[in-house]
């Protein structure tokens, strides 16, 4: 029903501060897209431009093939859920949800039907007569979501809606919003700084930094094929390990020199690494791809353990090589102590490589994931 297309969208503040720089995103109908990035990366500004709350300095925004650059928010057929809920404090929950419908002069019976239906879905029927201040944070957020649902908009916009809730409630609301998306089959755009939220909720993730889109793709694509060091480090928890290595050629074979250990790259990567002989590059390896190496075989890195984090289902080991700190995910049955000298054998086929200067991926990766149709 609703496809949202951003073409070269730019936002410039005060003449020279570029908050959003030539952003190109295609959001398909019924898709759940998450904008994620550190604070100040332009994700909220982009969302607010889609909402019509910010002027667009350059580029085009289309909703359903209609150019909306100069269309006021109320005529864009969108609904937005704010981080601070933005409920009208002097109105009851019912009136908060009915407000937008009353303005649109919708029949009273229809308003009542829609408000009660939304309240039922969100389990807030009991609170319809209450004022927002009599509700808990989670309930308020539900009312804010309800206010969006009753409008039956083409596109739902969420601006960090869960960041004011405590951790447990956040997980619960996360699941409820995903369920809501499945039920309503609407296009949803969701902004967050929390990469876990992005990974768990999004059909598609847009990673942003400094106003520039870094990469667009499904959660697993971004996890497995990060386009640069930033995306690699931002997606995933605990984050990917970055190890500075020098590419050496010894007797016709490539070797990666970490400083204290030497590693042999996977055969599939050799050709791509060849141009970097004699240069420093960054090797990225996920904590789960850095298993504990009991046999101290070759192609491993020797470390000393500095922190042990037993999480029950697994252990996170923080370890120090001569020049780097790395984190490894190991099964819970091991018994490690701080100071233990341990070897880890990275799965070289899973390693990612980044240019030492540009920090771009040396392995070929798509900026926008191309989905097989």
């Amino acid at each position, binding site marked *: 029903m609703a496809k949202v297309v951003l073409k070269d969208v730019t936002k410039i503040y005060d003449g020279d501060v570029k908050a959003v720089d030539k952003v190109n995103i295609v959001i398909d109908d019924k898709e759940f897209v998450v904008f994620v990035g550190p604070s100040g990366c332009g994700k909220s500004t982009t969302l607010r431009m889609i909402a019509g709350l910010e002027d667009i300095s350059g580029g085009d925004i289309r909703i359903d093939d209609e150019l909306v650059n100069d269309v006021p928010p109320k005529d864009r057929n969108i609904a937005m859920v*704010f981080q601070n809920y933005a409920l009208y404090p002097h109105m009851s929950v019912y009136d908060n949800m009915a407000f*937008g419908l009353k303005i649109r002069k919708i029949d009273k019976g229809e308003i009542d039907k829609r408000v009660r239906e939304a309240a039922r879905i969100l389990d807030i029927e009991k609170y319809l007569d209450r004022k927002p201040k009599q509700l808990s944070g989670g309930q308020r957020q539900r009312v804010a979501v309800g206010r969006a649902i009753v409008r039956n908009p083409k596109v739902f916009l969420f601006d960090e809606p869960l960041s004011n809730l405590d951790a447990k409630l956040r997980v619960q609301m996360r699941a409820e919003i995903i369920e809501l998306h499945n039920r309503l089959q609407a296009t949803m755009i969701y902004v967050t700084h929390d990469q876990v939220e992005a990974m768990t909720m999004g059909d598609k993730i847009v990673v942003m930094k400094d106003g520039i889109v870094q990469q667009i793709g499904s959660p697993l694509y971004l996890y497995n094929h990060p386009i640069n060091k930033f995306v690699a480090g931002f997606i995933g928890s605990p984050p990917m390990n970055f190890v500075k290595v020098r590419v050496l050629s010894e007797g016709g074979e490539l070797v990666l020199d970490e400083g204290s250990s030497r590693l042999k790259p996977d055969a599939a990567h050799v050709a791509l690494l060849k141009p970097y002989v004699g240069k420093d590059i960054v090797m990225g390896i996920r904590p789960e791809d850095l298993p504990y190496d009991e046999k101290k075989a070759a192609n491993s890195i020797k470390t000393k353990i500095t922190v042990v984090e037993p999480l029950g289902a697994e252990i996170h080991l923080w370890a120090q090589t001569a020049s780097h700190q790395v984190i490894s995910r190991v099964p819970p049955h091991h018994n490690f102590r701080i100071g233990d000298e341990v070897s880890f054998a990275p799965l070289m086929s899973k390693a990612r490589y980044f240019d030492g200067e540009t920090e771009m991926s040396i392995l070929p990766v798509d900026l926008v994931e191309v989905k097989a149709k």
Partner: protein
Amino acid sequence: MTSGVARMPFFTETRKRRLEKAAFYILSTALVAFWLIPLVLAFFTSLKSMDEIMGKGAMWAMPKEWRFDNYLKVWTSVGMGRYVYNTIVITVPSVIGTLALSSLAAFALAFYSFKMNKTVLIMFIAGMLIPFQMLMIPVFRFTDTVGLMNTRMGVILFHVAFQLGFCTFFLRNFFRQIPASLIEAPRIDGASDYRIYWQIILPLARPSLAALAVLEFTWIWNDLLWSLVLLQSDALKPVTLGLANMQGEFISYYNMTAAGSIIAMILPLVFFLAFQRHFVQGMTVGAVKG
């Protein structure tokens, strides 16, 4: 402090706090009593006859008899009733006009970004700083030119104009504390700017509007200067001018003036008490997080 009772120092935390509290109440009561002295004296004076007032040390004395005929006399023969009526007719529209215009101006200044926003705000503030003595003659001549001299409308318009600066500044600062999302949410919901002002902002601003209304009502009610400058006809004069007129060149009827002053005071007092309960803080609690 887990040591035994025997070791407890004389000035424990609670005892100290209690003493502080007592001192606070005693001091406050004394201050209030001090402030009320003129009022009480005026009330006593209003009950006395002129002979009683002129007696030695009479100012501080209680009236010999509690007689209220001065009030009756001042209401009927001096025309206090008409003066009070004139003041009401000037004050009420002035307060309503000031609040209506300043809340609109404050709404625009607080929530819209436009080129001259800061400049306009600064002009409002700068206007507050001009001493009225400087404006008296220009205002007098201007009023005469446009034909508003000796009309209630003239006084009302000038009250509105001169209170606008302070009220706009006050309300704008209050509005700035309202989170921007409370403007943006209704905008997305489809509300017009006027509806946002009327249905969202004004209800939220009720406590500050009430506070301003009380202040403005008292100020305009008690105004002497603008009426003195702009009104000549006795039929139009407000209560402040009426009271001033009662001071004779050779003899002043202090008892009558006192009675008139007390009468003049009643309405602002009632107004204050009526609006006091609207000084409800925390109207925005529940709107946003926390």
